[in-house]
């Protein structure tokens, strides 16, 4: 009987999986497991066996039955799938080219916001925290404490809007540095993002723009650390690119430098390049070592600590990053510009 069972099972498997139609499959089902099917009949014969054999055989038979039912079910679903495929192949096709619809409009973030966020993320990774301050400032924070007393020639470098002296619209975010240093003992590592105002409006200047300034103060900060941080920042923002530090002057830093990045358009060749005006370099910001007088103003001891500061215009960075060529377009809020910043 054992051999018999084995052959019944393998025969059933072969037949079932080859059944060409649902009708044939039904016939096979009746043949094997129907009321008078082969396996059912064998089950009926179990009662004729001796008790000890009955149990063993019973288990085996049930096993065979289960297996046969399993292959029947499998084949059934296979055949059903085949029918469905046939039906679907006859179904009408969609016009795949029609625009899709999902019930949410796509928003966008202003290019300046994007660049600022990216900038901040990069600086946070190396330990800088965000500090903010008022846009309406006192002369003291905007100039005086930054080593730019009244009648200092450097005041001409930034044309300032006044509300009623000494109240003004900050001309840089440097006053935040003063406020931060007055509030906290060194070491200090901050970036100050925000709007700044200068009384200047032409092809290349707008009266309000966004700046991020960085400040790091500790016991052994030198110009080498300033260069290291700016290389890291620019590499992350624009990819690895040569930088040059051009000696310059700001009253609140000394030594001071302008930071130039190799032109992203002509890659420094300067050949007929509109982006860098054929100089091969793009000015991206100013920087320097914090002037000892600034430290004295905030109660830091310049013999104990040193530090660097740098500042960059976000519109400038966004222009270079996204290829925007008119700074005034940042504040027109033309939808055709804004919607390009939706991802």
């Amino acid at each position, binding site marked *: 009987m054992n051999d018999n069972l084995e052959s019944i099972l393998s025969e059933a498997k072969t037949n079932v999986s080859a059944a060409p139609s649902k009708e044939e499959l039904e016939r096979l089902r009746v043949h094997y497991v129907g009321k008078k099917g082969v396996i059912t009949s064998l089950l009926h014969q179990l009662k004729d066996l001796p008790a000890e054999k009955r149990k063993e055989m019973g288990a085996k038979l049930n096993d065979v039955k289960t297996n046969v039912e399993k292959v029947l079910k499998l084949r059934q679903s296979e055949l059903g799938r085949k029918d469905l495929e046939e039906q679907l192949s006859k179904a009408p096709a969609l016009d795949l080219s029609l*625009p899709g619809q999902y*019930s*949410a*409009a796509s*928003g*966008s*973030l*202003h290019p*300046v*916001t994007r660049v600022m966020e990216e900038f901040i993320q990069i600086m946070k990774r190396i*330990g*800088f*925290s965000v500090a*903010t301050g008022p*846009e*309406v*400032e006192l002369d003291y924070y905007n100039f005086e404490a930054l080593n730019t007393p009244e009648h200092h*020639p450097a005041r001409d*470098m930034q044309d300032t*809007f*006044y*509300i*009623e002296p000494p*109240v003004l*619209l900050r001309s840089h975010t440097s006053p935040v540095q003063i406020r*931060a240093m007055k509030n*906290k003992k060194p*070491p*200090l*590592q901050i970036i100050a*993002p925000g*709007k700044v105002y200068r*009384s200047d409006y032409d092809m290349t200047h707008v009266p*309000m723009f966004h700046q991020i300034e960085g400040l790091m103060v*500790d016991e*052994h900060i*030198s*110009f*080498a650390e300033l*260069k290291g*941080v700016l*290389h*890291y920042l620019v590499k992350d923002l624009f990819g690895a690119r040569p930088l*040059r530090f*051009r*000696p*310059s*002057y700001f009253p609140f830093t*000394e*030594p001071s*430098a302008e930071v130039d990045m190799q032109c992203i358009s002509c890659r420094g060749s300067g050949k007929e390049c509109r982006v860098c005006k054929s100089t091969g370099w793009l000015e991206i910001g100013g920087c320097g070592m914090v*002037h*000892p007088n600034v430290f004295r103003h905030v109660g830091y001891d310049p013999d104990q600590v*040193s530090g660097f500061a740098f500042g960059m215009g976000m519109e400038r960075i966004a222009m270079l990053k996204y290829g925007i060529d008119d700074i005034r377009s940042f504040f027109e*809020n*033309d*939808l*055709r510009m*804004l919607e390009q910043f*939706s991802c």
Partner: protein
Amino acid sequence: MLVSLNWLKEHFAKTDIKLDPRELADKLTMRGVHVAGIKRSTGSLTNVVVGKILQIEKHPNADRLRVTQVVFSEEEGAEKHQIVCGASNIAEGDIVPIALPGCVLPGDFAIKISTIRGVESRGMICSGKELGVSEDGEGILQLPKHAVLGQPLSKLLGGNGSAEDTIFEFELTPNRHDCMSVIGIAREAAPLLKTTLKEPKPAKFKAGAHRTSSIIKVEVDDAALCPRYIARVMDGLKVQESPDWIKERLEAVGIKPINNIVDVTNYIMLEFGQPLHAFDLRRIESGSIRVGAAKEQRDFTLLNGDTVQIEPGDIIIWDGERPIALAGIMGGLNSQIEDNTTSIVLESAGFDPIQIRRTAKRLGIVSESSKRFEKASDLAAVAAASEKAAVILRDSMGANVYHPPIDTNEYGVKEHVLAVDMREVRKITGLPNLSAEHAADLLDSIGISSHKKSPNVLSVRLPSFRQDLKSTIDLVEEVARLNGYEHIPQNLPLSVATYDRLDESSFEFENRAKHVLFNLGLKEAINYSFISEDLCKAYGFLNDNLVRLKNPLSEEMKVLRTSLLPGLLQNYLYNINRKAADLKLFEVGKTFFFDPNEETKVKEVPTVAGLISGHHLNPHWSGKSKEVDFYHAKGLVEILVRQLTTVYLNFEPINIPVLHPKRSALIKLGLKEVGFVGEVHPHIKDSVLETSEPLVVFEINLEVLRKYARSGVRYKAPSKFPGVELDLAFVVDQTVSAQSLVDSIKHAGGQLLSEVSIFDVYQGEHIPANKKSLAFRLNFLSSDRTLQETEVNASKDGIVKALTEKFQAQLRS
């Protein structure tokens, strides 16, 4: 500032310097003396003259060429030259530069008589690029209509006519007063060209029969205002045109020659950076010059004819009680050089830069003199410049110079010495191996001498020409820049951030608001913080709390905004005029209000605002999208606030000019007003925006909202037991607010009632007039058991009872 290369070269010790102007410019720039432009002077353009196009005809054999007839004289019947030209921007009557045969243009381009497609051409009409005078190669260089025909072009363009020259344009930083002169630039350039500054030849004067002091006296009231004053008297002068070499030098750098005496003072100023002033000796009536601060207000007429008001404190050159010059800024009309002047007093002096700047700024005068004096005075240059001027006036203009001059500081200039600790230099520059010897060499290359006081300390003599060098840090910078910033290594420092981090919450909260609205499909706008008063008025934001700029750029940018909406509404207008529709804009920024309690008298409020117009969604082929209305804007506000905070808002009626009186709401957080939301007032839509599109706006104070900011997620395990859902509809008076019903349902529903929402509002058939039906979906849930029907029914009964009692509500079945 413009500087001529030829002039520079006169000041180098080495005479046969070969240099590439571009390379020199780059090197100077990298040493902090920024060259912003290089211009070739037109000196070499011989045989390029000014011509006039008399006639233009088509070229018989070439479509793109034209045959012109040009003349070099205005006279009737002047000889015509035929020139073939390919440019399109020419017209008959144009005044243009013509390269004549025999001329060699930049790039070794020789011009000769030629035949172009069968037509003879005797020269070339040139573009600026072909002449090397500008970058513009697009069309012919158009010359001014008044230009003298036949004149060499170089003369017209102010070039130096005889020799080729290069003009550098410098953009100097305000600290480098020493570079506002040919000698100053030469001092910086010399080491870059491996040479040194040429030592000036000492001038020799014969002591005259008359002493200077027998003719004029000089008094200085306060040496702090005028630390040095040298007066030289000269006679035997004749006012006339300057010799060519002086005129060419001046013209090359854009200074107009006036007469020999004035030209010499300008020449010396350009060379030494020391402004001079010449008085007509006849006009100094008291025989004495006094330098002193004005004590009272008075009018004074400058030599340019303007009358200005002198204020107490202004430094004045006095002739007795009469002002004759505004010291360091401009001379007076009453003592200027005239055509018949023969004797002069030549002033060379140093003045207090702060007072000069204060006066010049107040009067709005920017003269070549004040630009220099307001930075610093080099008291050694005061003497050198005076001497060289006297030499030129004597040798080239025949002046008889009285000697010695009067010098209020004849014992010379006090030199300051500064001890510079090399450890400080190394610490700041990040150059650990920088030796004292090397630093000394670098300083020496630009004329700053020093000696080693100890292994780590340099004793540096601060030269008088570098008044900007005052403290150690200034020398650190000098050493660093002369050594080259490129030699400083780069090192990414370890973070020094500490646990007591700064408060970033305000910035982060505003950023979160931006992101919520961005994710809800709004586009971020950024507008200027200042707007016009007219705009304030048009949108109804004119009030007593406005903050105005004292020096606005224009009326358009005068008032600090008290709302972000004028900006957004203007953005709406801008965009619909460009055919945009269905706008969704937001802005996060500060609004500004007058507030006497603030240190600056201005309160800044971080604010968010939004604007939505037209349809909820962009038009789509699959069907029509709903138009936006009050509820749409309210929904947006609710999502925004829910995402940012843990608070519930109340919406109450509001009446402000920008909003529809019935379809808008004041947003309140408890008792505090935090903003408003609603449809834009029909009047503003009609008369200001001229639109009939649905338009909704909102504005919220983020500062108040931030106090309730969500600080994170607090997890609550979901109930393991099924909830029960129950729908109830009530008919109530139209005036009953939905919120009051929800509040009562929640109150009466007990603890098991977990959620109430409104799923239908209905008025019309089957409902009496002045009544409305509201349908609520109630969810009951327990965290510890499966609810029994009796429990839910008890709650339902309580709700029905409460609503019936409180609102005379009728349960609909």
